[in-house]
């Protein structure tokens, strides 16, 4: 087992309910997160992200498989979880009748790592020092998230698990959080496992990423590697219906910015242009661009097709069956 492995998920599965009411939330996930990086965990709502995170934090018992932290199975050695991991799970929640500071003291005492000085330092770092004496019940979502981050870092853990940490933060807060997360890894040598629905954020912050959909990991790799070769062509032409008719059978097309965008390598451009010209279509602009992680994510999870479908037949330019597959790494 790799010694620099912070998290290893081995055939991890979770099924809720029994018999007919069974819901397979996570299906045999295998994943390894090496230390000292920001690892992104992406997936649409209900994909199984939070269930996976809860299994890592021993809040949910896996139906099958194992969670290893720093090479140790938490089932047999829970101390590793208590000592080396800090987590913020899906919407920070606190005792509403206690102040922010008291909530941190309580968590610190529960874990046996209470340190009043560290609490003050963290409150300062997350921008909550001046509001720490107020009852947590009156905090906004953003304030709770900040306090949640402080709670996750209270034990000075090696591994920080953050489930949607920027939820409820304003744009400035989101930017602050991004920098803070990078600092945790780059300057403090920690490992961050981050789930987020803000794909652009993951693209900017994470070193590696896993995409989960319907309880299964469908892509995993370095963000740069995943996006390498994932190019798009943006075509502005008249009539667009003609473009759809010519290319619709071969590509997944999306109407964007008065044109059509499709996933295609730069090398395919001449051939596409020739086809369009041969069909009497006037081309005003053809632009090759790198696919964003967001577009890649939507492609990978099949959301784009669903999204197109839900927009109505008039706007749907390509049947799902004719979608061009994005090749696996």
């Amino acid at each position: 087992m790799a010694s620099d492995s912070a998290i290893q998920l081995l055939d991890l599965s979770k099924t809720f309910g029994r018999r007919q009411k069974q819901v397979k939330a996570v299906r045999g996930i295998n994943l390894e997160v090496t230390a000292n990086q920001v690892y992104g965990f992406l997936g649409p709502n209900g994909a199984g992200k939070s269930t996976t995170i809860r299994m890592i934090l021993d809040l949910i018992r896996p139906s099958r498989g194992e969670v290893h932290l720093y090479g140790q199975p938490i089932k047999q050695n829970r101390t590793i979880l208590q000592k080396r991991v800090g987590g913020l799970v899906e919407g920070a929640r606190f005792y509403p009748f206690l102040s922010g500071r008291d909530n941190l003291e309580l968590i610190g005492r529960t874990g046996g790592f209470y340190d009043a000085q560290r609490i003050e330092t963290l409150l300062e770092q997350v921008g909550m020092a001046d509001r720490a004496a107020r009852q947590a019940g009156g905090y906004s979502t953003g304030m709770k998230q900040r306090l949640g981050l402080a709670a996750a870092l209270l034990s000075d853990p090696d591994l920080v698990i953050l489930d949607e940490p920027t939820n409820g933060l304003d744009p400035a807060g989101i930017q602050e959080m991004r920098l803070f997360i990078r600092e945790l890894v780059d300057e403090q040598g920690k490992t961050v496992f981050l789930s987020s629905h803000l794909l652009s954020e993951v693209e900017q912050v994470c070193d590696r990423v896993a995409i989960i959909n319907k309880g299964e990991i469908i892509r995993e790799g370095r963000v740069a590697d995943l996006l390498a070769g994932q190019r798009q062509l943006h075509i502005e032409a008249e009539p667009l219906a003609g473009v759809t008719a010519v290319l619709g059978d071969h590509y997944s097309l999306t109407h964007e910015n008065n044109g059509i965008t499709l996933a295609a390598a730069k090398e395919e451009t001449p051939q596409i242009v020739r086809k369009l010209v041969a069909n009497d279509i006037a081309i005003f602009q053809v632009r090759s661009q790198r696919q964003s992680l967001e577009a890649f994510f939507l492609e990978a999870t099949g959301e784009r097709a669903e999204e197109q479908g839900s927009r109505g037949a008039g706007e749907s330019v390509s049947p799902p069956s004719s979608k061009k597959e994005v090749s696996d790494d």
Partner: protein
Amino acid sequence: MINILRAEWLKINGNKWTTGFLIWIFPVGALAIVGFMSLFALFSPSFRENVHPMLWTDAFATPWSFANNLFGRTFLLGFTAVTFAGEYQWGTWKNIIPRQRRSLLLAAKFINLILLILVAFILMSLIFGFGYGLLSRIADVPYGPERTDAAIRDFLNDYALQSGLTFISVIIASIYAALAALLMKSILGGVIIGIGISVAEPLLIPAGLSFARMFNNDAWKHLGRLSPHLNIVNVSSWAKTDQGIAWLEPTVQLFNQTVSVNGLGFSIAVLATWVVLGVGLVLYLFQRQDITT
């Protein structure tokens, strides 16, 4: 463990309204009652004339029985439900479970709430005992028995038994509420189901009698002997009268053995079994429970 207990105490103490209304209401209520009665006795001759003599041994011991009646128990169930189900309702289990073993988290809850309840009842007992002494002095009525060594020794024995009984009763009530809270994951659900179990449990006695008739098997008649309620009443009877309750057969035939079932030892054994099994069940369920809130 001290740190976990302190963390739990921070929580309980911080939830001032709940703790005040459901726990401190006992000593505060006692203080209000004896305070008002003493004031009335000071200023109203007619009230003074109507003050009945009371034994100080009873005045100190009676408040403990509050934990065993439905009214007192409802408060305690409510408090236990808040202690356990509150974590689900506030979504705070997820903050502390990754930091500590579940068994220790549960143990800290049980220890804190039982200690808190016992402190409240000790205070209530002292307030009531000394308060009624003051009232008796104002009203000039006897407050016996005479404080001889023998009387004090007897009182201490009875007091220890009565408070021990309350201790067990509180643990059993806590187990009901904790179980209900774990299953319902809501404070209100915990209180309602906890009260439901609390009310239903003494029904083991008539249920046993009905089953005996229904299945034509006398063994069912003894089902009620396993009820915590019946055994608490039995222990209480021993504390007050030095004998078990007289309205049930004192012995039953079990595996060709004659077993004394209204003896103090039998009742304590039944109650201890309930406590061990109950705490074990709560622990077992909690260990296996998925925390999804």
